[in-house]
């Protein structure tokens, strides 16, 4: 009893202290710890999610890069193929065209030669004809006498030949 008096313990004040402390605890729990802890948890979740998302994005990016490389190499191969094929076609075309041209030029040449031959023959014939006429005229003048036309021709032909 003496100790209690010496320490100044008083039931009324003790109860009041208890109420005071309870109010402090309750208000802090309700309006400080609760919201703060909740927000810290939320933030933790958010950060975890963010890290996960970032990792996902990273792997996705790597995948995309890989597929990009694949596509690029595929395209390159395809392009190479196309170029080779085109070169082949071009070569073939070139040969074809060359052959055609050769053929045509050959033909033209042949035609021309033929023409020339013909022309030459015709000219020769014409020349022969004219010559024979001239010769017959000259002979007529020289001989003064007209020979039988038929005989004349025979003679001239034999001379010319």
């Amino acid at each position: 009893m003496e100790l209690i008096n010496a320490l100044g313990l008083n039931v009324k004040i003790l109860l009041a202290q208890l109420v005071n402390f309870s109010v402090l605890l309750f208000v802090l729990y309700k309006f400080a710890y609760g919201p703060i802890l909740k927000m810290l948890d939320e933030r933790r979740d958010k950060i975890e999610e963010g890290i996960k998302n970032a990792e996902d994005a990273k792997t996705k990016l790597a995948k995309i890069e890989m597929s990009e490389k694949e596509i690029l190499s595929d395209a390159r191969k395809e392009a190479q193929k196309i170029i080779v094929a085109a070169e082949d076609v071009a070569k073939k075309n070139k040969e074809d065209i060359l052959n055609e041209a050769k053929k045509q030029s050959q033909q033209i040449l042949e035609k021309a030669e033929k023409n020339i031959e013909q022309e030459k023959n015709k000219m020769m014939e014409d020349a022969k004809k004219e010559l024979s006429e001239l010769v017959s005229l000259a002979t007529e003048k020289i001989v003064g006498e007209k020979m039988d036309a038929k005989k004349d021709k025979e003679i001239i032909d034999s001379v010319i030949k």
Partner: protein
Amino acid sequence: MGLNISLAPEVIFHIGSFPITNAFFVSIFVTVIVLAVFLLIANRFQTVPTRFQALVEILFEEAFDFVESIIGNREKAKRIFPLVFTMFIFILFANLLTYIPGQAAVTLKTEEGVMPLFRAAMADYGVVFMMTMVSVILMQIVAIAVHGPFGYLGKFFNFKGPLDFFLGLMDIVGEIAKIVSLSFRLFGNIFAGEVLGAVMLFLAPYFIPLPFMFLGLLTAFVQAFVFSVLTLVFISMASTIEEDELVEEASI
């Protein structure tokens, strides 16, 4: 100039028949300050923290993780954290309040003489006793909730053998000793610090008391920490089931 040291808090005025002691006044004062500080901080909280908020968060998280590391379980930690942290903050603020310069000079004139308006709240055994009782009663409640009423009583009244019976009675003594050790450790440290400070100021007012004040600051923090951590440890001990107990239950 006389040295005025009183073990009991001084009654500064009455409301009706209700005596208001300076320690009670201070504890209400501290409550208001703590509430103001925390509500202000909690209200300003936002998802993207400012520097100050980040600092508060670090302290808060560290405190929570510490509680979790002792009690070993996040759910349990969430339940016990508010009480333990409030005890820590309340004791810390109450202890630090006495280091505000000039507050010791504020006095009230009453019929019984001149009384200091402020007193270290923890140097009033009433406040400490109240908090000790809160923590000790909570320990018993937790123990009953975990072990069941019969398991709880069985710990104290054990009739398996004379030695077990004696040890059970010793456990009762141990529970009472917890009240004494918890409350008088805090009360004694703070009261002694106050007395020492007063004596030092009385003997040599300049410079000499400074080291003692530093020591007092350290005590202010350490004792707040010790009180709340001991509460936490006792409650965590009450909430765990020992292995041999499990074996016992299984054999029944």
